[in-house]
């Protein structure tokens, strides 16, 4: 199945990103009107890098990931513009290539492993399915490789549990099964959509640690979609903050969180409790996230923004621009927020 198109371009890959999304837009045409879920999102992912896409529910982060995986149900969902470049080739322009890449070079894990695993097949069958279908492995070879994969994601007694069904595993173990499934074909990019949201805190930490180890050991690139600032600081190299279907701030995690250049990021920071400051007062962001069917004019954050200036912010849409080297923000007054 691996055509020449799938081979990474060696001359490019040294410098070019593995995956690059440019100006992506997705809308859902519902009977109640058009919902603009993603409005011109861009980001780039380098080899071996962990990029966090941070945002509230409804910020368009999951839809962006689904567009990369071509998982958007159409209708009602339509990708209305932009490019998704994998090693420089636009997947949106080449559906055949897109479907070859999906599941083999770019894989994805989901939030709720119980519903993402098929209840009527054993975990071994489900992990091995891709090996049999895409690699043409025999049942026996696939099974041996499945046990290796289950050991890789640290499922105890892998050889004994390979024939168990998903409901016979605990939540954390199910998430590991799904990770094993995503790793089966040695992907270059793994997209994790809220991978630990459904888990207990202690189990969350274990699964995150596992993902971090795997990412380092296997040299994958990881896109971590989350609303959890703690996860971002622990895991990611860079972060893209999304609001109302747009990237509003981007940069390396340390400097973004130390000194935000967008009022929304700043608001997120001050609404999160920090273990080190016992007497710190939490300041929530006022108002509620906008409806994607009715995004405010100008800067979509202006109704909630403490820096808002009536004329500029209400009427002019701020582009994502460089504030200092390696830091970009979509705020008219980014310098003011930053300093």
């Amino acid at each position, binding site marked *: 199945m691996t055509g020449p198109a799938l081979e990474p371009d060696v001359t490019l890959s040294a410098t070019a990103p593995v995956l690059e999304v440019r100006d992506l837009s997705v809308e859902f045409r519902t009977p109640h009107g058009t919902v603009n879920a993603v409005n011109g999102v861009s980001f780039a992912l380098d080899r071996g890098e962990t990029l966090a896409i941070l945002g509230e529910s409804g910020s368009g982060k999951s839809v962006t990931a689904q567009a990369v995986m071509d998982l958007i149900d159409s209708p009602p969902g339509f990708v209305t513009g932009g490019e998704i470049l994998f090693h420089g080739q636009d997947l949106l322009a080449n559906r055949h290539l897109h479907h070859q890449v999906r599941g083999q070079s770019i894989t994805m894990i989901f939030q709720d492993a119980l519903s993402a695993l098929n209840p*009527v097949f054993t975990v071994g069958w489900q992990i091995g399915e891709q090996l049999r279908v895409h690699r043409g492995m025999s049942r026996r070879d696939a099974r041996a490789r499945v046990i290796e994969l289950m050991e890789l994601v640290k499922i105890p007694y892998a050889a004994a549990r390979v024939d168990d069904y998903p409901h016979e595993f605990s939540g954390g173990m199910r998430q590991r099964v799904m990770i094993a499934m995503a790793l089966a074909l040695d992907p270059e990019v793994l997209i994790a959509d809220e991978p630990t949201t459904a888990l207990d805190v202690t189990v969350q930490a274990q699964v995150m640690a596992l993902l971090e180890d795997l990412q380092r050991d296997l040299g994958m690139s990881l896109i971590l979609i989350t609303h959890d600032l703690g996860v971002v600081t622990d895991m990611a190299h860079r972060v893209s903050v999304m609001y109302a279907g747009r990237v509003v701030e981007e940069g390396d995690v340390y400097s973004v969180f130390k000194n935000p250049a967008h009022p929304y990021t700043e608001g997120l920071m001050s609404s999160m409790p920090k273990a080190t400051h016992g007497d710190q007062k939490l300041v929530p962001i006022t108002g509620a996230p906008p409806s994607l069917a009715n995004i405010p004019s100008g800067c979509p954050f202006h109704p909630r923004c403490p820096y808002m200036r009536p004329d500029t912010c209400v009427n002019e849409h701020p582009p994502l621009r460089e504030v200092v080297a390696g830091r970009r923000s979509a705020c008219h007054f980014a310098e003011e927020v930053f300093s």
Partner: protein
Amino acid sequence: MKRYVIRRLLQFLPVVIGATFIIFALVFAIPGDPIRALSGDRPLSDAVQETLRERYNLNDPLLIQYGKYMLGLLQGDFGTTFSGRPVNDIIVQRVPVSIRLAVSALVIQGVIGGLAGILAALRRQGFVDSLVQVSTTVLVAIPTLVLGMIGQVVFGLHLGWFPIAGIDQGWYSYILPGAMLASTSMALVARLLRTSLLENLRADYVRMATAKGLSRTRVVGRHALRNSLIPVVTFLGADLGTMLSGTVIIEGIFNLPGLGREVFRGIQQQEGTVVVGIVTLFVLVFVTLSLVIDLLYAYLDPRIRYD
């Protein structure tokens, strides 16, 4: 699993005893004298009538009659008709016809109903979907009795595609009666599978299967369909009774010499032993098939464990 099967088999006993007793009592309660009905216009002498009554235990009270019948049944004896013919012979002779009818109906209902349901779900709100929705509504609304007769007149008489009655043309003779017997269940299978498949196609595990890079055929055919069959199998289990009672009607309409027609005739002629014998057989078939369906259900859905 083994313990579950044994427990279910033990449950057969009260079900079979209860069901047979009700049937026995109902036949017992049919007004009129079977011996007098047998003799027709020329009355038999009192002595002959008395001998016949004695032979068929008709003078005993209900419970004694039932007890004697069940003793025979335990030894595999379904009794004898008034003309002296063993009911066992009738059953052996009629069973193949009924089995062929049931198999034809099951195949038609599974294949056509199943395909219709799948196509309708995959092309939701398309032409096939609308066609399936409308035609299934019509089929469900018409009783088997009426539909059987319409089918016989239209496809047998006017179009001449299928034989009107009898089993002279082998399996071909069973297509029309099988389709008429299957019609209601076929429509329900189509609708159930459509709904169930539509629901499963939206499930997270289908999205995951797609994200694994599997083909649409595999995602639908292996992942979604397997889960969608679970409610269909449940329905088929509950629908067995409809199927059995349907054979009585359809065999009557198409004059198929099967068990159903024999029951029909037995009721008309007050042949208690024939009715009770065959219906007892129906009960046994029903409980056995219910058990098979339950086991199949556990196979289809591993989350169900009977122990």
